[in-house]
């Protein structure tokens, strides 16, 4: 393997600090731009992605000691292009072909100043891939995370992530994807997939799907950063704004969601002064903007619900009528038993626990929800409110056994202990 050599570098920036978040952030921001430039130019997403990873690695090693080049993006494009030439050459050599022509095919030229983040996201969130592969590829190719970082974030071995990424790239190649925006008909559908993948990344950071760690804030922050870049390109899309708002409003509560010991604190017991006001203000403004865009979608509506909660100075001040109304609309726009479950909580606040329990009863026949820990825990909660401690105790215990989250299990067992009949 040939080590990438930097192009004749402009003098290093005098202020260039040592290794630090400055260079890391810079590299993360540049990764999709450099990859976009290469893929536009040479096609072959798979090879370009490898080449960019190696260029970024070279930068991470060299820049802290040698200083950040004057045109860091140009530096990365040149190094990555050279790496791609090497790769093409060795591929050709392997196939016993003339290598001289290969080099002529990839000659680094001038760098157009466009942001290809959205194009790359469309490619990484290709419908032929599983959600796990879409997520891994997005984090690496667009987020600029290393395979090792992604592996750590998802608590799986690096080889597992590497296999996933390489398979994803093979599938994209097999599907014959070219580096162009999908046509209008597919575009809307593909954007939904992109938003869903970003939402999954955020959720993985917000509540670990399994494990003792409740919050892996880095993934949540990464999802917000990527969603911001989509929003920057599609500011008029109400769902993009809605998803960004939803993330910001949820992230704002992060400092209050757990105790120092790592225990879960439910919304009504959170210290609202610990919520991040700046994030709430930004999220709330985005919700208003998103709701003004015609045809309501699920992200906007969920964000509007989060904003209603954020608006209440205390749990008692919550405008539950508005929350319930929004859930009713959400149920119509995107029918889903989890939405109905959440509406039952709001309905119980507006009309009393029995009304909420009656709505929950309609979910018992739904195979997706029967025995689900969330249905059990909401029922336990409403039974407790309705003055049935024995029923609440039983359902808290059943919910605790059913949840895949250790933090939630501790919380539910704590609730069960509080209502335990003597």
């Amino acid at each position: 393997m040939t080590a990438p050599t930097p192009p004749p570098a402009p003098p290093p920036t005098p202020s260039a600090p040592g290794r630090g978040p400055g260079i890391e952030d810079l590299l993360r921001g540049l990764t999709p731009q450099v990859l976009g430039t290469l893929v536009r130019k040479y096609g072959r997403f798979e090879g370009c992605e490898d080449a960019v990873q190696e260029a970024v690695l070279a930068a991470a090693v060299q820049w802290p000691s040698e200083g950040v080049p004057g045109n860091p993006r140009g530096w990365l494009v040149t190094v990555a292009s050279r790496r791609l030439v090497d790769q093409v050459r060795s591929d050709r050599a392997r196939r016993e072909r003339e290598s001289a022509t290969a080099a002529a095919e990839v000659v680094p030229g001038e760098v157009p100043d466009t942001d290809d983040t959205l194009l790359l996201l469309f490619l990484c969130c290709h419908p032929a891939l599983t959600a796990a592969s879409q997520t891994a590829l997005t984090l690496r190719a667009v987020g600029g995370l290393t395979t090792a970082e992604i592996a750590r974030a998802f608590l799986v071995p690096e080889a597992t992530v590497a296999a996933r990424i390489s398979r994803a790239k093979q599938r994209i190649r097999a599907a014959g994807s070219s580096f162009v925006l999908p046509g209008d008909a597919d575009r809307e559908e593909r954007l939904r997939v992109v938003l869903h993948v970003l939402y999954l990344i955020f959720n993985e950071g917000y509540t670990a799907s399994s494990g003792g760690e409740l919050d892996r804030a880095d993934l949540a922050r990464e999802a917000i950063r990527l969603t911001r870049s989509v929003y920057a390109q599609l500011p008029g899309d109400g769902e993009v704004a809605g998803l960004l708002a939803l993330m910001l409003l949820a992230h704002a509560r992060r400092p209050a969601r757990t105790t120092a010991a790592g225990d879960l604190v439910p919304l009504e017991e959170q210290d609202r002064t610990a919520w991040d006001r700046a994030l709430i203000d930004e999220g709330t403004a985005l919700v208003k903007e998103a709701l003004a865009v015609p045809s309501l979608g699920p992200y906007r509506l969920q964000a509007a619900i989060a904003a209603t909660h954020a608006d209440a100075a205390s749990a008692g001040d919550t405008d539950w009528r508005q929350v319930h109304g929004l859930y009713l609309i959400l149920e119509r726009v995107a029918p889903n038993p989890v939405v109905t479950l959440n509406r039952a909580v709001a309905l119980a606040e507006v009309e009393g626990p029995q009304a909420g329990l009656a709505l929950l009863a309609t979910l018992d026949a739904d195979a997706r929800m029967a025995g689900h820990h969330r249905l059990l825990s909401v029922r336990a909660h409403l039974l407790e409110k309705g003055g049935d401690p024995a029923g609440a105790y039983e359902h808290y215990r059943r919910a605790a056994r059913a949840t895949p989250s250790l933090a939630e299990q501790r919380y539910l067992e704590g609730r069960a202990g509080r209502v335990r009949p003597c």
Partner: protein
Amino acid sequence: MKFLISLHINPAVLDALTDEEKEAIGVGHGRFIEELKESGELILTQALVDPSQAAVVTVRNGQPVVTDGPFLEAKEFLGGFYLIDCEDKDRAVALAARIPDTRIEGLGVEVRQVMFSDGNLEA
């Protein structure tokens, strides 16, 4: 989502298999491992020695007591496991169905979601 697919074996059932059947099991597991590696769903797999080689450790009044042999007087024992990371439970069950043990009466394959993980995953 992470799942543990545990393989519950019965030494008597295994002993009764023909050499061809035993070989088919070995080949089937080898193929399964390769598939999981290629799809990026394998975290780890381990197979355990015969249950007769187990030692059961108890501490009573501060004194450790070690007894040779398995903990339970059972016919089935943990023989090994696959730790996988896949899309959802349906996928985990579909993968488990590819394990040759599922085709043999008396051997058990169980799928359970992982709740807590720690350790050096680079190992």
